[in-house]
């Protein structure tokens, strides 16, 4: 891959949360690479650190969260070395975020119009009229009548509000959009509409996207590549098609097996036995070993390294080598 094609590179990211119960090692040594124009899915169970990765890129971790180590290189520059003011100018303009719950992500006291205008005028030196025109344009593109721009958030349904959130994320034509479970809070029909819309917009705007989700069906529809996270660690990173064809990591395998299928008669819903580990005291060795059907002795003692087993295909499991590393 040519190097100038890389938009975002995360190297050795380690994030901790300081809580009363102890230090939560939420993200540990995560490496990720996103090229221009591609969509990367970030998949895993609740609490595996995928949202933390998203918030780290934005540098918007909650006050008790800290990036301990690593680099986040966006367009050639390390975001972790930027000042707060430099970072603020990147947010919304070059990297934007779509949040999980559209019901609570809009200021209830502000008209939709003012959300959009504020965003444009914060970053660009344009008149209010110009900003309003742009707001009307983007809102229409997302299938909302432009007259409704003057309404308040509570006058919209969940699906419509998520469209507005997307409009807010896209209005400044960012290079990267981080979509954090954008359809989780919506019902199935609306989910499908929003996904269709995202697919469409991705082409139109030629942006890169990180899609954070636990829903593998969304991943298969929307992403070019998938990164699977387990307990704060990246366990597998590969092209979406390849992962669905043949998952290598036992956790990925389990995830895929747990998708209910209508074409195969099954007695019972498949699930991965056990619970995700406590991240204050994660298990030694491979964090997945207590739940892994293939666990070996070495898995309990050593953390397997990330191995590139095919070009662009990374797995973190002793079954695929790295035993002497």
């Amino acid at each position, binding site marked *: 891959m040519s190097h100038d094609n890389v938009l975002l590179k995360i190297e050795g990211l380690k994030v901790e949360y300081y809580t009363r119960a102890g230090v939560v090692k939420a993200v540990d040594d995560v490496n990720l690479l996103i090229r221009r124009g591609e969509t990367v899915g970030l998949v895993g169970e609740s609490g595996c650190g995928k949202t933390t990765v998203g918030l780290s890129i934005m540098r918007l971790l909650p006050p008790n969260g800290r990036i301990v180590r690593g680099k986040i290189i966006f367009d050639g520059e390390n975001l972790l070395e930027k000042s707060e003011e430099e970072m603020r100018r990147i947010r919304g303009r070059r990297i934007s*975020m779509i949040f999980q719950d559209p019901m609570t992500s809009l200021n209830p006291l502000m008209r939709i119009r003012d959300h959009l205008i504020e965003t444009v005028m*914060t*970053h660009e030196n344009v008149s209010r009229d110009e900003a309003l025109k742009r707001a009307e344009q983007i809102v229409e593109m997302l299938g909302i009548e432009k007259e409704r721009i003057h309404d308040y958030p509570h006058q919209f349904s969940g699906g419509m509000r998520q469209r507005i959130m997307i409009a807010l994320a896209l209005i400044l034509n960012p290079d990267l959009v981080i979509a954090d479970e954008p359809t989780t809070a919506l019902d199935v029909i609306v989910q499908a509409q929003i996904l269709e819309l995202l697919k469409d917009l991705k082409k139109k705007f030629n942006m890169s996207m990180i899609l954070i989700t636990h829903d593998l069906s969304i991943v298969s529809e929307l992403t070019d590549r998938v990164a699977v996270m387990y307990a704060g660690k990246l366990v597998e990173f590969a092209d979406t098609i390849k992962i669905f064809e043949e998952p290598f990591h036992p956790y990925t395998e389990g995830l895929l097996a747990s998708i209910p299928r209508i074409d195969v008669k099954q007695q019972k819903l498949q699930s991965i036995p056990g619970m995700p580990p406590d991240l204050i005291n994660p298990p030694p060795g491979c964090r997945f070993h207590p739940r892994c059907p293939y666990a070996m002795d070495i898995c309990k003692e050593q953390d397997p390294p990330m191995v590139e087993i095919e070009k662009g295909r990374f797995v973190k499991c002793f079954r695929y080598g790295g035993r002497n590393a």
Partner: protein
Amino acid sequence: MVSLRVYIISRLLLAIPMILILLSVVFVVLRVMPGDPVDAIVGPKAPESVKEKLRHELGLDKPLWEQYVDYLSGLLKGDMGTSLYTHRPVFEEIMDHFPATLELTICSMIVAIVVGIFTGAFGARRRNTPGDVAVRVYGIMIYAFFIPWFAMLLKLVFSVYLKWLPSGSRIEPWATPKRITGLYLIDSLLTGNIVAFVSAIRHLILPSMTLGLVLSGIFTRMTRGNLIEILRRDFITAARARGIPENRVIYGHALKNALIPIITMFGMEFALLLAGAVLTETSFAWPGIGTFLVERIAYRDYTAVQGVVVFYALLVVLVNLIVDVIYAYIDPRIRY
């Protein structure tokens, strides 16, 4: 908007029984209290015949229920009666004193809200730092201050030691502006009387600081608590993720949301404000309704005291109503 009208009318109708109960209690308590208006007017050593004559003139020899019915029927016609002490209409006397109280309470409220919101926002932004702890201590301590004591303290420092500000009254007597609204600050500006304006402000500072700072404690705690809660909301993170500057996030997005419950509280605080004004006025010889009330209680001026109670009750109802309407205006989700 039709429903808003219905809402306002129903609220006003609901206020009637409340005022009636309040008035009845005051009516009885005043008469059960030791002391006699006749004694207060002519002195306890006056001959019994003089007292009898005065008692008859004031209608105090009638049975209690008759006095009660007389007073209520007068009130229904909008007549608050005449003062037992000065024989002037009570309403007129209240109106003479009301501008002074209004001026004091408005200035105190401004102090309370500005100081409360500023300190509260300061604490919320620096949660769990020494600055925040200081804000929390302030919020609790200041509210517990006894107004006459706090007034004395301020007078001691700023009038006696530093000699910066006057220790009482509303204005230098020779500077009194021509009465238009009765609010000296406004009247002096309307008549272009700068000397009166400066004098009125100098006299206002200590009383409105006393009352305003004591009341600011509640606003400090409310603002801090609400703001911390609001700053945790998703839409704040979403606003930050759009690169909105932090000051705008806090003072534009978060504070406006945090202020909604504070506005409701303003209505409830208003009664407390009037009560605090009584203590403040007497501490600073401020010629408002509070001073008037205390003076007339001493004279057992039944009609004047009853008049003030009715007037204050109506005022509280009215202010709460206005607050509700403002509330609906600020929060688009609320419709009556």
